């Protein structure tokens, strides 16, 4: 019997909604392997968020709220997660694949002597025969993997599991865990990306720009269109490398993976690494002056043209449409 512990995330005092598809994964896995799942949230001053986690049918919601957990550090947090997992008899740990779990979960897996599967996109089979699908080679290959150890750790692709469905109300339990800090790592500071726009992972429309927009001034061309659509802005690696956009706007194999209802690819060629991060979008629009650009092969609607002419025109048309 599988007992799955989902690690939810708080960020700057709020529940990170993008961490919730892991609950859906856990519910599916519990269904297929005859088990149950719980949700845990660690942090400081986060007790008030328990209510947002208690309506998904989890067996329990565990809140670890203590000042020591104000800032994340991999070593002490891995120890805390494993202590909690042992305490409640968890056999599997799950969370959404993002920079938090990428950093933390392998350490948790090592402590649990568990096999870890990164970026799970689907669950196959059931019972002891359960296997997991995960993208490899920038999504050009889908591997099916099997965990050989009694315990397992999963990071799951948030774009491949729905936000959790409402379920029975879960009891909330406050848990006190020792904060075991060996002092080898020290938090110094966090500089958040300041943006009034929605998060890339949560927006229903994403507008990504590439080198075709040339510079910061060119990139600013996307602002008005994004404002009108309530869209998030994304970028290619080249644009981030050039310092035009902050790193956390990079969409692709090694950045964020998004799957909005509508994705605009503006002045970007469609390198394998970028396409890996956006090809699950529902509707893809590509605008590029090079009609041979590979992005047109994945776009539902392609428009060959100069982005500096097309974007103002398109922005105007959207403004009219939105009335």
């Amino acid at each position, binding site marked *: 019997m599988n007992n799955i512990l989902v690690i939810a995330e708080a960020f700057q005092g709020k529940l990170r909604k993008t961490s919730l598809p892991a609950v859906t994964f856990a519910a599916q896995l519990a269904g297929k392997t005859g088990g149950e799942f719980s949700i845990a949230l660690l942090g400081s001053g986060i007790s008030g968020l328990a209510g947002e986690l208690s309506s998904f049918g989890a067996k329990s919601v565990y809140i670890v709220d203590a000042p020591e957990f104000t800032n994340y550090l*991999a070593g002490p947090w891995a120890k805390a997660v494993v202590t909690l997992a042992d305490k409640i008899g968890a056999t599997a740990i799950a969370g959404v694949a993002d920079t*938090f779990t*990428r950093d933390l979960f*392998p350490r948790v897996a090592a402590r649990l002597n568990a096999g870890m599967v990164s970026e799970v996109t689907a669950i196959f089979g059931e019972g002891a025969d359960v296997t997991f699908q995960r993208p490899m080679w920038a999504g050009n290959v889908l591997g099916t*993997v099997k965990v050989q150890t009694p315990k397992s750790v999963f990071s799951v692709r948030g774009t491949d599991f729905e936000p959790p469905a409402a379920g029975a109300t879960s009891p909330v339990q406050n848990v006190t865990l020792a904060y075991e800090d060996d002092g*080898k790592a020290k938090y110094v500071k*966090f500089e*958040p990306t300041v943006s009034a726009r929605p998060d890339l992972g949560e927006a229903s429309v994403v507008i990504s720009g590439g080198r075709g927009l040339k510079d910061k001034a060119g990139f600013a061309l996307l602002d008005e269109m994004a404002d009108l659509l309530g869209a998030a802005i994304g970028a290619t690696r080249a644009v981030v490398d050039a310092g035009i956009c902050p790193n956390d706007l990079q969409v692709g194999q090694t950045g964020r993976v998004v799957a909005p209802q509508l994705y605009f690819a503006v002045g970007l060629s469609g390198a394998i690494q970028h396409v890996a991060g956006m090809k699950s979008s529902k509707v893809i629009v590509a605008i590029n002056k090079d009609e041979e650009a590979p992005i047109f092969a994945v776009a539902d*609607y392609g428009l060959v043209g100069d982005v500096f002419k097309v974007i103002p025109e398109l922005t105007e048309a959207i403004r009219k449409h939105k009335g």
Partner: protein
Amino acid sequence: MKILVTAKRVTDPDAKIRVKADGTGIETAGLEYKLNPFCENAIEEAVQLRDKLGGEVIAVTIGNDDAVQSLRSALAIGADRGIHVKLADEEMDSDLAARILAKVFQNESPDLFLLGKQAVDGDSSQVGQLVAEYLDLPQACFASAIEAAADKLTVTRELDGGLETIEVSLPAVVTADLRLNEPRLPTLPNVLKAKRKPVAEFTVGDLGIDPTLKVVTVAYEAPAARAGGIKVKSVEELMDKLINEAKAL
């Protein structure tokens, strides 16, 4: 500073990867291989740190006989010597790679272990963190800047939502992100010099490591191709399609 650094050999990141018809792996015929781009960043950083602070850079790879080529690439960038642990990719998972690297670390006792934040074939992004836990060392993953002092590093990490700075005491494990530096193109004299630098070879047995895998890949398949779309001729036509056909606006 004595620095251990990874040099994984991967398929060309820009190559179109195809799955074998029987689903047992990928088609390797005609594929080119390169040094993992994130390892390149790690090696460049290691060499820069050594040039500034003195010490030694040891590159380590795990792979079949051909993996020695990525060690030569690392040596051409400026690493001093290489360690080749012979084991085919198919016989490895992130955990075994981490246990091998942890053993190499224990044998060499470096001050710093720099790794790429992920390899662009498996895309798991686990190995550095696993090594850190196995060795009970502090980690700083997804580094975009490293400042070194005598007994500690100050590292900037690229996270979802912003940039974080942490300090780690040495020895430490750091994984490199793409913006850590601009890896140099090795010069011809350095490529030639790299051929004469020493490379030690080990098997998993030599290192006394249990080769049992925790995660096995049982099948490979190609993802469903996205159905091709259409080209529109104007912004007007695009708006019409988005509103009336896709109902996306």
